[in-house]
Every structure is written in C-alpha cells, then in structure tokens.
C-alpha cells in the first residue's frame, strides 16, 4: 500500500498528444530498443486521434493482482511499484484480467508479464515522465500535493468555462 510520502503518477490524458515518446523511453530503458511492444506504458488511441490515453500500472493501494496471482509472483517494491517476479510468473495473464485498465504487458522476450517499475531507483524521474516534459501529460509528484494541485487545475478549468466573454469597450 502506497504510503503518503511516496511519489505517485498523475496522468492527464487531455494533455497527451499521442507522440509516444514515453513508449520509446520505456522500451529503450528496459530493453535497449525503441518499440511499443517492449514498453510497459502504452498509448491507447481513440477515434481520429482526438483522444490518447497513457495506460500503465498505477500501483493501486491493496492491489488486486497480488491477491489473484496463482503463483504469488506480483510483489510490491519499496518505492511503491508493483512488479512481477519473473522467476515465479508463468504468463497466465490473471493480473491483466483483474486489472481495472488491463495494464500489465507481456514481455516479448520471456513471455512473462511486466508492469511499470517506476524506473526503480536509478533515475531521478521515471523516463516516461522525462520524455513527457513538454506535454506534461505524465507527471510524477508527491502524493501529498496531488489532491491539492488537481483540485486547483479543475477549479481553473471551471473558472475558464464560466468566465463571461470579454466585451470590447
């Protein structure tokens, strides 16, 4: 269970323009190739490019995948990420089915499942977040401030929507 002083991901799909730099960064970091198949984050594109959604493991509190995995291969890391122990995984995909967004991705090399490890501890920021620095659709922020910032953003959007149109003088 993610404690409050941990950092968490914040995804704003409205800002995602589908450039897939995050997929490139992720696959390059973990496999040394630029390929969406090897990426632990995937962009789901809807319609004629009017909506792009970054889908990846959010490491929910009390993760269901840990409870249903028949091999007990899903483990929670100290940094809050929930990952698969490849020595135990048999590739049965139970974690994909129970996941509310179907986040786990099959490792194309081993056939086992894999999810976001938040680039473990070796990067300052997860590489996908670094790759998204222009669009800011993905952010990695302190769990304590996220509620406040998202509330402010929502309020700002509402304010923009309700602001009376400027009347030229």
């Amino acid at each position: 269970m993610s404690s409050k002083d941990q950092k968490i991901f914040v995804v704003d799909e409205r800002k995602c323009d589908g450039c897939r730099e995050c997929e490139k960064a992720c696959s390059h970091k973990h496999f040394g190739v630029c390929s969406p198949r090897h990426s632990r984050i995937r962009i789901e594109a809807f319609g004629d490019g009017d909506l792009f959604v970054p889908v990846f493991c959010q490491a929910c509190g009390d993760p269901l995948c840990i409870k249903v995995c028949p091999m007990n291969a899903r483990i929670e890391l100290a940094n809050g990420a929930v990952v698969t122990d490849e020595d135990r995984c048999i590739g049965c995909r139970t974690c994909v089915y129970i996941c509310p967004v179907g986040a786990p991705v099959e490792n194309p090399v081993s056939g086992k499942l894999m999810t976001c490890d938040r680039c473990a501890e070796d990067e300052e920021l997860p590489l996908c977040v670094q790759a998204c620095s222009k669009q800011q659709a993905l952010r990695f922020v302190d769990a304590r401030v996220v509620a406040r910032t998202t509330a402010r953003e929502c309020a700002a959007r509402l304010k923009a929507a309700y602001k009376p149109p400027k009347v030229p003088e």
Partner: protein
Amino acid sequence: MKIVIVGNGIAGNEVAFSLRERTPEHEIKILSAEKFPEYDPCSLPYYIGGDVPREVVFRRSLDDYQNKNITLVLDSPVVSIDPHAGAVVTAKGEKHFYNKLVLAHGGRLFIPPIEGVDRQGVLSCKLLGEADKLSEHGGSTAVVIGSGAIGVEAAEALKKKGYVVYIIELLDWILPALFDEATARRLEAALRTYGIQVLTAEKVLRIDGDTAVTGVVTDKREIPCDTVVIATGVVPGTALAQTAGIEVERGIKVNSRMETSVEGIYACGDCVETIDACTGEDVMFQLKHNATEQARIVARNILGMNATYTGAYAFARAHFFDTHAVTFGKTSRSTACLLGDTEVIERENGKDYLRLILLDGKVAGGQAIGTYADSIGLFMGAMWRQDDIKTLRKNWVNIVRAGSPYPWIYRKMGWLIGLSATDVSSDAAAVCQSF
C-alpha cells in the same frame, strides 16, 4: 489472549500474519493438518507440469513463522471443538485451549462414490502431498475425472509431462460452473487441438484394476490407463464446525464480521458461505482472493476493530498452453432463474471471444477468450459501478465527441461491445511502422 487458527492455508496464514502485523501481543497458534509451511494450491499444477520448481509453491518458510512468533503445529488435524471449555482436540488427542478460534481449514476434495477409487494410481491435485505423488508418478496415460479449474490445469500439467490425457466431465460442457456453453465449447475445441481428449456428458462407472489402476469404465467406453486424477470439486469442511454446534448450510454461516453463530469463533476461507458483494445473495466462491480478504477482516475483528466484510466475488481464469480465458460474475445459466430482462452480448473475432451477461441493462457477468480477455477488467469495473449499458448506447454520440466529459473507459467499452467499428487503435504492430 490465546488465538488458535485451524488450517494452514491461504486464509489461516493471512489471519495469523495480519494479526502479527498489528500487534506483537497475543499467542498465535496455527494447527495444520499437513506437514508443510504455507503453500499455494493454485500453483500446484504448474509444479506438477514442471513449469516451476517445487520451492516456488511455498508462500512462507518455517523460519517466517518463528520470526513472527507464530506457533505452527504440523500434522495435527483438528477433530472436534468444545466451545464451553474453549478447546480444540486434534486427531492425536492433544487439547489446545483458545480465547478466540478461527476456522480456516478450507474444504476437502470430493471423492465420488465410484468403485475402485482406492486403487493405486488414483491421485489428486488439491494438496501438496498428493501433488508430490502425482509429480513422481511415472505413468503414460491419465484420465482426469472432473473438468473444473483444477481438472483442466491438472490435464495441462500431465500433457506437458508427456502423458496421453483424457478429461471426463459428467455435465454437458467443461468448466460448467465458470463458463457458459458457447465459451466452454471454444475452450474444449482448444484443448483438443493440444491433444487432450475431452469427453463431456459422460459418467464414470468404475475404475478397473487389482491393486494398480488398469482402466476407467464410463457409460460410453472403456479407457485403458495407469493414472486417474480425481478433480470433482471441493466440499467445505463443515463437519468440524458442527461438533461445536455452529450453524452450517452449504458452508459455515458467518455474519458480516466473519463471526460464526458461536461466540468467539470466526471462520474464513473455503469453508464459509458468505454473500456476493454485488448482489447480496448467499454464495460460496472458493477462490483465493476472497479467502485473503475474509482473513484480513477476521484479524481486525479479533482485535476489536469492527471491520465489515462487503462480500465475495467470482473471478477466475482458465489458462492452458496458449489459450487464455477469463470469467467473472454470473453466467447465463445462473441468471436464467432470476427475474429481470437478461441480454447476452457476444463478440467474436477469430479465436477471440467476448460474452457479456446483462441483467436489466447492467453487467452481471462476463466471459472472454483471447485479446478480449485483456480488457475484461473494464467490464468488471462496470459491474461494480452498476453502469447501465443502455445509457452507454444512448449517449454513445456524446461519449465519442471530441472533448467529451466521459471517462475514456466508456469509449473503450463501447468499442469492445461493437458500438463503433473503428474507434480504438491500440495495436502495437500498427504503431511500430510509425517509428
């Protein structure tokens, strides 16, 4: 306080370790009928099939119990409970006194009354001891009686070991409790392509052989074999609870605090009958995630934290070789006798298959094979939220509008049930070319 836990399975251990996580006090004792530290029965078929080494089935080592100051008494099945004296008696005649008792002894394999089930070579796959025997057994032809999840997984494991495998199912289709006929027939066809013989609507009459098994006789044929695996389901262990006068129906009856009808005795895991989290009906899903959740509720209630269990839910997968299938909630058969309008949404794309069961427009259950299965979590969410699919259809124009306020999951669900043919392109292969 002395806390005695009967059963060393998923539920029993979860109670013990959740208690210990919260408090260093209290004496915690687990009475195990078996000779091993905690292992996971779900992983046994993969150990038998040689996918993983034996040590992987264990969830804890004996040292873990010692480090957490939990007494583990092995090889001591409990035979009776005396709630007045506050004691349980084991088969060896030992008495263990308790202030709080947790019944987490699960179920036992249902052995059908077939002639010859005591022959040598008749094995099962529910307990590690039995799995060890099956793993060491050197046979060439195996008959699996029963086609539940354990049966199908055992058949896969034996096939991987090089056996010729037959599955015999008494009912009309395989995995009858989990899947509807349309889904099950597809899985049956898939099993056949892997070389496993599936015989449905067939009754085993007897198992032949003097001491060792030589064959199985059904009402339609005779199958010569040297191994028989019994996988005819698990019955909850209610007999022990009855010795204490605990109210029992199909399983041990518990309230929302997981207390039985006798004060100071809790129950959790495969042996209890509880409510469905979605519909509130009395149900028995003998599944691991429910056992874990129930056990955590028991642990908190023992410490007086007044936790309420919201209910169990059905979620199971069937997986063999390259075929992946999943089911959740109700099947068409279990909604057939309910009031309300039922609708079945079916989608098919080659080997992939999606089946959703709607009750009054709301998702009540679903089954999927292949790539549709990867998105089944969206529909489970819809079931929990009681989303109305009629509303989804009605508002579809607004949902797909650019800048729509609806969450993207509705858009994907609509696409999956066929409201729009070309809305989603998440196929990685198509994207590869853009790199």
